[in-house]
């Protein structure tokens, strides 16, 4: 892993004008979402060793149970991955395919209309997954594999364009520095979004993600959270993946099992600042936070208001 390099950019490079965006519709699978709809993307790991669930859904039956559960809880999207973000034992392309492709096919068969996202950075894997029915390619490693967009385009799938600061997949940040972290986030994600639509991805299916913790120390992740409105202003729908991450643990001195409150607080802030998709482990709680933010913003009426009204 080489140092990702300190960025001197002033951001907003790439000329990425989101073409949608008069109405700012986000399309996923056969569905369309307006800018005031806040979506929960439920995490389903087909890994024996992911940091938070520790392999709870490694078995296919457990993973399918998890899908049933999150759909029942109101998840808008399921995000299926076969490789943990942390470094560790290599997961080959063939093994990643073995872990995820039959499972995605099974989920598609069980839920013909469910939006299925797949968490992979490899185009070979993404191709098999899209053929099996995936609607969205969630590339958390910042466009490391240049051929990913063409696969998404070929299958009419969406693409998440994220910021990993140039780090290779499955590596940790080490003394990473940015002159201006949000400028770097914007420069890289907007360039990736540009690349995606140039390669034929439907612009209404492109999202951008600051990728908290990826290529970032805690101060950096807090800064991109604080300044998320700048990312929203770029025009692309913003996805955030916050759930139980280290920046929350470090902010609160909270261990792996003590980060839910911090996660939900951060979720609320990001929702308030305009993020639209929230990748999460706890669907019910996340849904409730998002509904509450929508209610405060006046974009969703209260579920039932009688107080003082009788």
């Amino acid at each position, binding site marked *: 892993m080489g*140092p990702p390099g300190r960025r001197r950019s002033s951001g907003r490079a790439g000329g990425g004008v989101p073409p949608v965006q008069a109405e700012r519709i986000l399309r996923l699978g056969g569905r369309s979402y307006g800018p005031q709809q806040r979506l929960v993307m439920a995490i389903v790991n087909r890994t024996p060793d992911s940091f938070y669930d520790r392999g709870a859904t490694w078995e296919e039956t457990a993973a399918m149970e998890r899908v049933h559960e999150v759909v029942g809880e109101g998840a808008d999207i399921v995000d299926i991955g076969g490789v943990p973000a942390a470094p560790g034992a290599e997961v080959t392309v063939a093994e990643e395919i073995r872990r995820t492709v039959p499972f995605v096919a099974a989920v598609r068969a069980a839920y013909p209309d469910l939006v299925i996202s797949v968490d992979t950075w490899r185009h070979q894997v993404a191709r098999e997954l899209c053929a099996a029915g995936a609607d969205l390619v969630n590339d958390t490693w910042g466009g490391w594999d240049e051929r990913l967009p063409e696969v998404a385009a070929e299958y009419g799938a969406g693409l998440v364009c994220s910021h990993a600061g140039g780090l290779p997949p499955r590596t940790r940040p*080490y003394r990473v*520095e*940015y*002159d201006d972290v949000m400028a770097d986030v914007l420069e890289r994600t907007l360039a990736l979004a540009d690349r995606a639509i140039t390669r034929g991805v439907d612009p209404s299916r492109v999202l951008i993600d600051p990728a908290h913790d990826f290529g970032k*120390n*805690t*101060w*950096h992740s807090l800064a991109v959270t*604080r300044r998320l409105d700048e990312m929203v202003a770029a025009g692309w729908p913003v996805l955030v993946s916050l759930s139980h991450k280290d920046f929350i643990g470090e902010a609160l001195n909270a261990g792996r099992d003590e980060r839910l409150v911090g996660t939900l607080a951060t979720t609320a802030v990001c929702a308030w600042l305009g993020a639209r998709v929230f990748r999460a482990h706890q669907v019910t709680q996340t849904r409730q936070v998002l509904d509450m933010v929508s209610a405060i913003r006046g974009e969703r009426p209260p579920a039932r208001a009688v107080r003082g009204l009788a």
Partner: protein
Amino acid sequence: MGVRGDGSLQGITAAICPPAPLLARELTGLDPVIPELRRACAAAAERLVKTGPEVIAVVGLGRRTAVWPADGRLDLAAFGPALGTRGGSVPGGSVPGGSVPGGSVPGGPPLPLPLGLGARLLDDVGYSGPRLLQSVHSGEPAAACLRLGAGLRTISDRVGLLVMADGSACRSLRAPGYLDPRAAAFDAVIADAVRSGDLAPLQAMDSDLARELLVASRPGWQVLAGAMPGRAPSTEVLYEADPFGVFYLVAWLAGE
């Protein structure tokens, strides 16, 4: 100290401290995290200053090999956007414990982090004498590093060298670079060289392996080796540990 008959030391004294961002107290938040490392660095800097050098040269990694203005300052904005002059500020306040609240002060230009940390170490022990701030690019070949070190050795009769360098970042599963089984042996070469005072093994440090083990400080070690080609008769290791999977060594080396 003094020039020895064999010319091996020429009155050079060196301190070694890791260029870890978390040496800056502001960056670790409310928790000091490793005060013992900071204390060891302060002690090493203090001993360096007490030898009465005519000039102290600080050596550390930078984006280019260059001498920086002596009034250059530590700038933490690139690591903690809330702490510096760029990228906004933390509403409501400062982080306790930093000797430079907010991470930047008026003065010279912002320095590469290793030099900024070294400059602060000198400030904190009250050193106000001449200083030379020398950054070295990560790709600087060994021969150039050795030459640079040899040159620093001759800038004065009594030179103090503060080398901001550390070892691999691959010593555990939780390490920034994950566990690499080659890391321990690599770091042991560094530790043995410093402990024995015989820095010759550092001259031949494998730059490819260093890169794979995230030893960004490789040039700094070779500048040190170039500055102290003979055996240092007196060395002391003040701190040696890898609490985050990164090999930190704080030490002091001197002639007689």
